[in-house]
């Protein structure tokens, strides 16, 4: 059977580096590792052009090239004989490669130095097996297409996740259902959901699973890290072999620093310390970005090319589910019987400071609440918390309604899509994580209560 390029798509995930061989006009050969090879169509591949190196200069003089790639599933090596066709600096081929490189660069604080100049498109003249790199037996389905050994994004898993999500009664329950469903039906133990924040071009973590620190309330700016790049581009990003990509980027960083270049501060990636693969999926309804779901794995090749369509479908479905629940909660708050107050965690009292007092400071200019000198929360959830704490202190009131918050001009809620229920949930989860002795507890239809297991002292600063 002759080899077809579309059978080699796993080779283009960036897990095993490719090797590029070129030759100058005067006949001097060149061999160099290549950052990215991407599948374009049945007869073309794209090679990343990041630096004006010898390979690139050779291609200008002599368009013939040889690329060797390795299949990460079977470990079979292939050599592709190529002829340079064109350079693209925009369009889907460029954007796909650019996104991946941009995400890695951002993670390493290398934006601007580690970037894609162009996606160089080559015609594939022939494909041959590499004789010294013989792989294990190939797996082919009767249709001649690759059959994943361990399929992840199956229709069955999607259906089961959908059933669980449909049973959710409120936002709180929905986020937990998504994360637990991803673990149970897809095997993803590490995932987080971020929603668009009140501040423009910001995402805020609303829920996570599989991390020692939940990270609720942590923020990611658009364009920063894999999650921020996903939000900015509103395109899913699958990164397999993330460690390889980062090592490659860091090598470039060291050389740039040797020349006097100083990096921007690296954005700490939420989640696993050393994820081997990541999947960022934008949650988009129409043209509106609702948030981003990020799934991480310690397995280098967790998200396969074959999963691309299902991943897109999953993102769309989750986005609609979240947006519908946000609307439902705003318009029809959950019925009383569904909002059974959660009993205080057993550790609530023990997590209160030994002197039984908490100092909360609201920095009105920055709209940030600090708890015992440490950052607690910002923006609308901070304003709500402050309002509730002050009311409690001045009037002794402990129960509140969503409606009175909506009518309170001092909270400065957006007139359109205020996402109040989501912000309240964020506040509640953040408090649960950071100070279980100060709690926001649902009390039924659009109502909640402030429960304090510590004496609180409030200070407001400009």
């Amino acid at each position, binding site marked *: 059977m002759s080899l077809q390029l579309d059978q080699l798509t796993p080779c283009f995930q960036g897990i095993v580096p490719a090797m590029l061989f070129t030759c100058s006009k005067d006949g001097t050969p060149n061999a160099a*590792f290549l*950052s990215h090879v991407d599948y374009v169509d049945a007869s073309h591949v794209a090679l990343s052009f990041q630096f004006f*190196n010898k390979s690139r200069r050779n291609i200008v003089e002599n368009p013939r090239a*040889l690329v*060797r790639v390795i299949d990460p599933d079977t470990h079979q090596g292939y050599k592709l004989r190529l002829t340079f066709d064109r350079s693209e600096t925009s369009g889907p081929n460029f954007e796909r490669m650019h996104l991946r490189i941009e995400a890695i660069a951002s993670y390493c604080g290398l934006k601007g130095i580690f970037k894609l100049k162009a996606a160089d498109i080559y015609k594939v003249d022939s494909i041959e097996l590499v004789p010294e*790199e013989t792989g294990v037996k190939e797996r082919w389905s009767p249709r001649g297409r690759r059959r994943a050994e361990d399929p992840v994004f199956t229709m069955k898993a999607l259906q089961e996740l959908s059933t669980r999500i449909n049973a959710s009664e409120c936002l709180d329950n929905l986020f937990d259902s998504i994360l637990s469903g991803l673990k149970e039906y897809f095997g993803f133990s590490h995932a987080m959901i971020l929603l668009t924040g009140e501040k423009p071009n910001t995402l805020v973590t609303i829920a996570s699973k599989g991390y020692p620190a939940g990270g609720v309330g942590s923020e990611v700016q658009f364009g920063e890290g894999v999650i921020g790049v996903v939000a900015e581009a509103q395109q899913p990003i699958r990164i397999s072999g993330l*460690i*390889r990509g980062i*090592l490659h980027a860091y*090598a470039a960083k060291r050389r740039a620093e040797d020349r006097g270049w100083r990096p921007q501060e690296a954005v700490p990636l939420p989640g696993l310390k050393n994820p081997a693969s990541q999947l960022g999926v934008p949650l988009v309804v129409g043209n509106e970005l609702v948030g981003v779901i990020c799934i991480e794995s310690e397995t280098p090749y967790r998200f396969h090319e074959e999963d691309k369509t299902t991943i897109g479908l999953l993102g769309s479905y989750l986005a609609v589910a979240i947006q519908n629940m946000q609307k439902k909660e705003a318009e029809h708050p959950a019925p009383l019987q569904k909002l059974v107050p959660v009993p205080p965690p057993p550790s609530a009292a023990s997590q209160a400071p030994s002197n039984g007092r908490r100092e909360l400071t609201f920095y009105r200019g920055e709209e940030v609440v600090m708890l015992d000198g440490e950052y607690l929360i910002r923006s609308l959830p901070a304003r709500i918390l402050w309002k509730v704490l002050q009311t409690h202190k001045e009037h002794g009131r402990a129960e509140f309604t969503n409606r009175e918050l909506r009518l309170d001009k001092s909270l400065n809620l957006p007139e359109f899509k205020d996402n109040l229920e989501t912000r309240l949930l964020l506040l509640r989860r953040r408090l649960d994580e950071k100070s279980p002795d100060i709690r926001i507890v649902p009390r039924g239809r659009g109502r909640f209560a402030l429960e304090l297991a510590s004496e609180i002292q409030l200070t407001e600063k400009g």
Partner: protein
Amino acid sequence: MLDKSLTEFLEQGLAIHMGTRNAHMEPNGCRVAAVRVEEQGQHLVAYVPKAATAEVLDDLQNNGQAAVSLARPSDDRAVQVKGQFLALRDADASEEAFVMAQWRGLLGQLDAIGLAGTAATSTWSVWPCVAVTIRVTQIFSQTPGPEAGSVI
């Protein structure tokens, strides 16, 4: 010339490939299992698995031009040695331990960065090898970044 420091780097067990070209200026390339620096750094012996493509060996004997790329997977430090083909022979049994030690060094690094080198290459042909000696003419840094391609 390959000095002591560079020799130590090159012989530690790296990801190595050799590039050549044919009379039609078409590039060819193959994997190299190990290298040895000889003649006070003027010669580089590349151990090419016998199973590797015959085109590379043909090219070497026809036009003599060679480029050997050597990279350390753990940090992507990389060097390219350009040279002129001098000789080709079957590697003898006494060289096997030297070659395989370098190969295992590479696999250890791949394992360390999560590429499962040992398992992934279990079906690859590494030994026996042919020993290709080239005279070193130029050495370049190939570490990714703006300085890639500079002469060492």
